Every structure is written in structure tokens, then in C-alpha cells.
């Protein structure tokens, strides 16, 4: 029992940034699916989902796409995309009536 725990700890210690990112992204996706199946509509749920989108995007860009030390302009636009769109999702939910009013022809 102790031996298997030790082996498991050793395995965890060997995980690198890529492996940890992959595990985190899978877990967040699973949590999102759980929310989709169980949670009722609320602004809080929307905020949590928006945060998860921003986090997943940043993780993929920094660790998989390797943008964390790349060209600053590319970094700015890519990171900006994943700040702006989660925020827009939230704002579109929060001000849906106003959005409908200003986009009515």
C-alpha cells in the first residue's frame, strides 16, 4: 500500500508543465460538462464558465503553443482574444436587453 503510494508520488513528481496542463484542461472540461447537465441558468454560472474559458485559453497558449516567451505582439493579440471574448460573453448575458435594443433594425 505504502509502496504503491510512493510510486504514485514519484509519478506525480515526474509530471512536467505539459502533462499538468493537459490534466487540468481535462478536469475543467469535465466540470464544464457537469455544469451543462446540472446547473440552472444564472449570472454566477456564466461568470464561472467565462473564467474557465479564459483560463483554458491561457493555459493552451502558454504551455502548448509556447507563447509565454514568444513575440510580444503575437502574445498581446492572442492573450487579448481570450480576455475580450470571455468578458463579452458575460456582458452580453448581463446587458442582453440593451444589446437587443441597439441591434434592432
Amino acid at each position, binding site marked *: 500500500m505504502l509502496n504503491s503510494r510512493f510510486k504514485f508520488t514519484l509519478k506525480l513528481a515526474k509530471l512536467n508543465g505539459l502533462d499538468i496542463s493537459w490534466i487540468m484542461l481535462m478536469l475543467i*472540461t469535465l466540470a464544464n460538462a457537469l455544469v451543462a447537465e446540472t446547473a440552472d441558468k444564472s449570472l454566477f454560472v456564466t461568470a464561472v464558465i467565462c473564467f*474557465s474559458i479564459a483560463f483554458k485559453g491561457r493555459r493552451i497558449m502558454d504551455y502548448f503553443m509556447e507563447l509565454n516567451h514568444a513575440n*510580444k505582439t503575437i502574445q498581446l493579440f492572442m492573450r487579448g482574444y481570450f480576455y475580450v471574448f470571455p468578458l463579452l460573453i458575460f456582458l452580453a448575458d448581463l446587458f442582453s436587453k440593451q*444589446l437587443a435594443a441597439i441591434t434592432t433594425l
Partner: protein
Amino acid sequence: MPVGNLNRSEMSTITENIFHLNGSGLVRNEPETVNKIPGNRAVWVGIFAELTEFALFFIVYFIAKAHYPEQFNQGPLKLNTLAGTLNTFALISSSYFVAKSLAAIRVNEPEQSIKWLWRAVMCGVIYLIIKVWEYHWNVDQGIQTNTNKFYTLYYYMTFNHLLHVGWASGSLIWAILGLKSGRYTQNNHLGLTAIACYWHMVDLAWVIIFPLLYVLR
């Protein structure tokens, strides 16, 4: 850096020390990424063009949702969340495999790099199979492209994304051929990096599409 007279283990030690390989932490001195454009300029023009296209879809989604809130509240409930979740798993895993492939070529292990890329291609194929199955399932549930505004957007976004997964999978196979032929090596794999960046972009687009269509109401 002269590499011709070094054996494989010496080369691996040098690259590990100099490049701070992706597999072992942050990429600080990797010549193709530090303060540089990963891959090449052309692929980034493509990536930003694609992201702009998806951005327009998202904006249309916000406006349509504001005008038809009931359709957008009920729409996700009838979609197959399991299919959407499995597709997200497939895309995230494929991105991880592509990153692993890049890490392998940096330590001069092209065979390993090829193996990781095949795994990524398999994920792409799994995604396509699940998507086609999901479309059939939708039709059986009476969900068509013209059922309502939500489903029109759902089909438009997901089919467009499916096309991107299709040709990006083709580019991964192209990279495998490049590795097999020796076109991509430890010291020259910018093309592979460019293909990897494009693949990650396809994954990033899905990171937004999945919650918009399957999770949020």
C-alpha cells in the same frame, strides 16, 4: 551550433541544458520561440484570419441570443453534451500530443515525434467521427439547420470548425511525412512548429465554441 561530430546522448544533454525543453519546464532559450514568432509569419496571418472569422461568429451569437433568449436557453438542453465533451477531450489531447511531438524533435527523437503526431491525428479522426455521429443523432431528435436560430448557428459554427479540424489533420499528416523524409530535424523544424501553432488555434476556437453551444443557457 556545430552538431555534426556529436553523438545522440551528447546532443540531448546540450539541447536540454540550452533549450530548457518544453517537456521539462518553460521554454526560455528555445531559439524558435523566445521573443520570436513561433513557426513563421505566414501561419500567423492564417491564424489571425481564422480567429477573426470565429470572432464574427461569436458576435453574431451574442446578438442572436439577445434577440431570441428563449431559443438560446432551451437549445443547449437538447444537444448531446456527452458528444461535445468527448470532442473537447479529443481536441485538448491532440494539442497535448502535438506539443509532445515538438518536444521530442527538439531532443532529436524523430520516431517519437512521429508517434505523438499519429496520436494527434487519431484524436482528429475521433473528433470527426463523433461529430458526424452527433449530427445524425441531432437529426433523429428533430434538430435540423432550420429548426430555430440557435440550431442554425450551432450547425454553422460546428460545421465550420469541423472543416478546420479536417484540413488541420491533413497538415499533421504532412508533418509526419516531413519527419519521415528528414525534412524536419532537430535543427530545422520551423514548419512543424507552424503546423503545431495552427492545430492549437483550432483547439482554442473550440475552447470558446463548446461552452457557448453546450454549456451556457
